[in-house]
Every structure is written in structure tokens, then in C-alpha cells.
């Protein structure tokens, strides 16, 4: 479904030196897979995820989504993004809109649904995450866990084919992590293709079809969750796991 070829990303520092964040990543994500990416801070995992929908434009390499090279300048990236949902660490709900308007804005403006259909869809999804009573409030009055569940629903309103999660629980109070992970598990059970950058090893173990370990801009190790956690190959991963588990 998504093929990543020789993906490189460099950032220029103010002193003109070059910071190589991704150093030639190759990977293939198939439909229905749940890929969980773990690794230390600064390993490039968030950048990798943000390249998948071109929030970061790769320095070189290709990303093929459903046969379409999205790194090609002629590709209409907005059309591609309609099919890829993204959930951010800081929720990024639209502060000037009510929850309902947050959910319906994109589907209606992009003419994917009319207003009635979008509202129906949003209502149904809000029910699923038990937040229907919040439909008419503004994001400022919600807790972090509620915001993140709404953010997930906002992406789902577009009927995406794949969902990208960028550390979705890292900005939450520990108490609220569970409610967000539950929604993500539900989504996984429904067969959604997911790419999740996270520090929640429990989630990786339980939900992932593959776990990737990234460090210094490379994928160092890739395995099924059982093998990944019980039988790590590289010393770097052994060291990492010994610290986080």
C-alpha cells in the first residue's frame, strides 16, 4: 500500500551544517498492517512518519502510495492526504471551531460529503468514542484524552485508508492514556492500516503486526512483536529495551 524507497531527509542547521535525520529508509507497508515505530528521541521516527504524508518533504527518495509516487511534484498532495489520516502529539484541534465543526469542516469543504451526511457520520463516530455530549463545545473545554479522541474521530470522518499516529499519547496525563489507546485498538480491530510512532510498548506488543526500531535515521530492526521484545537481535535494541521495559 505504501512503499518507501531510499528515503532521506536532511535539515540545514543555522550554521549551514547538515543534519541527516533519515538516511535512506526502505520499507513496505501492506494493507491492514499495524506498524509500530519505536526508538529513542531524535532517531527520526516522527520525521519518517511526517514524510509519509509529506508534512515534511523528503530530501531524496520516493514514497509510493497505492501506485502513486507522492514525492513527484506533479502529484496533487491534497488529494493523497484526503486518504491518509493523521493524529498529532498535540492534538491540533481547530480552536476556533466547535467539536462538530472540527469534524465536518474538511469532508464538507472538500466535497466528500454534504453537510447532512458529514454530521451523521460525525455523530456516529462521536457515539463510538462516547463523546457525543461534547459535539457543541469548543476544544478549550476538553481534557487531553477527550481532545485526542476527537482528533482521531476528525481523521476518521474523511474515511481514510491509512492512519498515521505521531506519539498520540505522549502529551497526555497518565490517566488518560488508556482511553486513547482503547480507541486505537478498536480501530485496529476494525482492520484499519495504521502506522504508529509511540513509546507505549504495551500497545506495540498487543496491537502491532510489525514493530520497527529506529535509531540514527535508520531502521535497525524489524520484527513481529513477540520476536521483537523477547528476542532482540542488535545490542542497540537490547540496550533500548532494557531501559524502557
Amino acid at each position, binding site marked *: 500500500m505504501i512503499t518507501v524507497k531510499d528515503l532521506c531527509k536532511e535539515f540545514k542547521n543555522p550554521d549551514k551544517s547538515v543534519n541527516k535525520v533519515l538516511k535512506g529508509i526502505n520499507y513496505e507497508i501492506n494493507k491492514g498492517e499495524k506498524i509500530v515505530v519505536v526508538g529513542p528521541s531524535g532517531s527520526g521516527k516522527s520525521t519518517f512518519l511526517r514524510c509519509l*504524508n509529506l*508534512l515534511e*518533504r523528503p530530501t531524496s527518495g520516493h514514497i509510493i502510495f497505492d501506485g502513486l509516487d507522492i514525492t513527484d511534484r506533479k502529484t496533487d*498532495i*491534497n*488529494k*493523497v*492526504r*484526503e486518504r*491518509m*489520516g*493523521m493524529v*498529532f502529539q*498535540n*492534538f*491540533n*484541534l*481547530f*480552536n*476556533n*471551531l466547535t467539536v462538530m465543526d472540527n469534524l465536518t*469542516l*474538511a469532508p464538507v*469543504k*472538500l466535497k466528500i460529503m454534504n453537510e447532512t451526511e458529514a454530521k451523521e457520520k460525525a455523530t456516529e463516530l462521536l457515539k463510538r468514542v462516547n463523546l457525543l455530549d461534547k459535539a457543541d*463545545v*469548543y476544544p*478549550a*473545554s476538553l481534557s487531553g484524552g477527550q481532545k485526542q479522541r476527537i*482528533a482521531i474521530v*476528525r*481523521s476518521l470522518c*474523511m474515511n481514510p485508508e491509512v492512519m498515521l499516529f505521531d506519539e498520540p499519547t505522549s502529551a497526555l496525563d497518565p490517566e488518560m492514556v488508556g482511553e486513547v489507546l482503547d480507541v486505537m485498538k478498536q480501530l485496529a480491530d476494525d482492520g484499519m492500516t495504521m502506522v504508529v510512532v509511540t513509546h507505549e510498548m504495551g500497545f506495540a506488543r498487543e496491537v502491532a503486526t510489525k514493530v520497527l526500531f529506529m535509531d540514527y535515521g535508520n531502521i535497525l530492526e524489524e520484527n513481529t512483536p513477540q520476536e521483537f521484545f523477547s528476542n532482540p537481535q542488535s545490542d542497540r535494541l537490547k540496550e533500548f529495551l532494557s531501559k524502557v521495559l
Partner: protein
Amino acid sequence: MTLYERFVAAFIASDRWKLYISGVGITLEIALFAGILGMLIGNVVALMKLSQTEDGKPTILNYIATFYVDIIRGTPSVLQLLIMWFIIMASSNNGILVASLSFGINSGAYVSEIVRAGILAVDKGQMEAGRSLGLSKAATMYHIILPQAIKNIIPPLGNEFITLIKETAIVGYVSLSDLTRVANQVASRTYDAFMPLIGAAVIYFIIIKILTILLGVIERRLRKVDNR
């Protein structure tokens, strides 16, 4: 002369109060036209300054906008007014039009920086969220960023308008009889500077005090929206 006689000479004799009123009229007329023009220019220039290609490089619009802001901020407004009056629009004898244009173009540069700062102060995650849903940059700007930026923009914009009203006091240079020039003329007619100059100062003060109160009301309204 008693204080009372000086007051009469400055404001009442020969219907001089009419001069002050027409002076206030000219001051406000120029400030209003210039303010509106400044806001139009300011918004367009701010968007030009913020425009960039998909990979974050500046565009040609960017350079034009920067050039405009640099020129305006780098020269005195009196000089800009004189250049407009004696050179660029030398064929026009409509002083109010020339002054409004000059001040509007001047104010536009400052407004553009206010608007730009207001837009940049909106969390960049808002733009990313909009784009990640497939909305274009323009659509996200219009539906998400600008409505939030307005809250940051209104207070300094009010400040800029207040500055603009006072800055019009230099239109005497192009022989417009605004409040300041009228007061000065009365002073030279009556050989008494105290009453007309202090009187003009009080009138400016009252106008701006009223504006300040209005702005306070608007700001409180905008903030209320945040506390819901």
C-alpha cells in the same frame, strides 16, 4: 487680558470654533481613509510576506513585500507626504486624497507587520492539521488560521490607528487645515499660543480616549470567546 478674554479670542471671536470643527473633520477624514487603505494594503502585504513555496523557499511576492515595508519604514512620513504631494501626485490639487493615500501607504507597512505577527502567533500545528486532512493552504488559512489570528491582531491594530490619527498632524506641510494647523493659525492671528494649542491638545486627547475605551470593549469581547 484675563483668562476669559483669551479664551474668547481663541475660540469664540470671529466664529473661530468653526475652524476647529472643520480641522477635526479633516484630521478624522484623512485618518479614516488612510486607516481603511492601510488595512487593505497591510493584509495583502502580510500574506505576500508569508507566501512561500511548498518546500519553504521565499517567493517573488515575498521580496516585493519586504522591499515595500523596508522603504516605508526607512523614511520619515513627512518626507513621504511631501514626495506624494510635490512629485508623485503633483498634478492633483486634492490635498485630502493625496494625504490619505500617503498615510494609507505608510500605515499599510506597519499593519502588514501586525497582521504577519498575528498569523505567525497561531500554533503551527493548526496549519499542519488542516493540511493533513487534505485542505489546501489557502483554505486552512481562511477557515482556521485567520479567525484565530484576529484576536492577536485587533489590539495592536487599534494602537496603530491611534498613532495614525496623531500622525496626520503633519498635513499642514501640504497646506491642509487640520486641527493642528488651525490651532497654529489662530495662535498667530491672536498673538496668544496658549489657548489654541492647549485646546487642540485637549481635543486630540478626547478623541483618542474615546477610541481607547471602544477598543477596550472590543478586546474584552474577543477574549470572552476564549473563556467559553
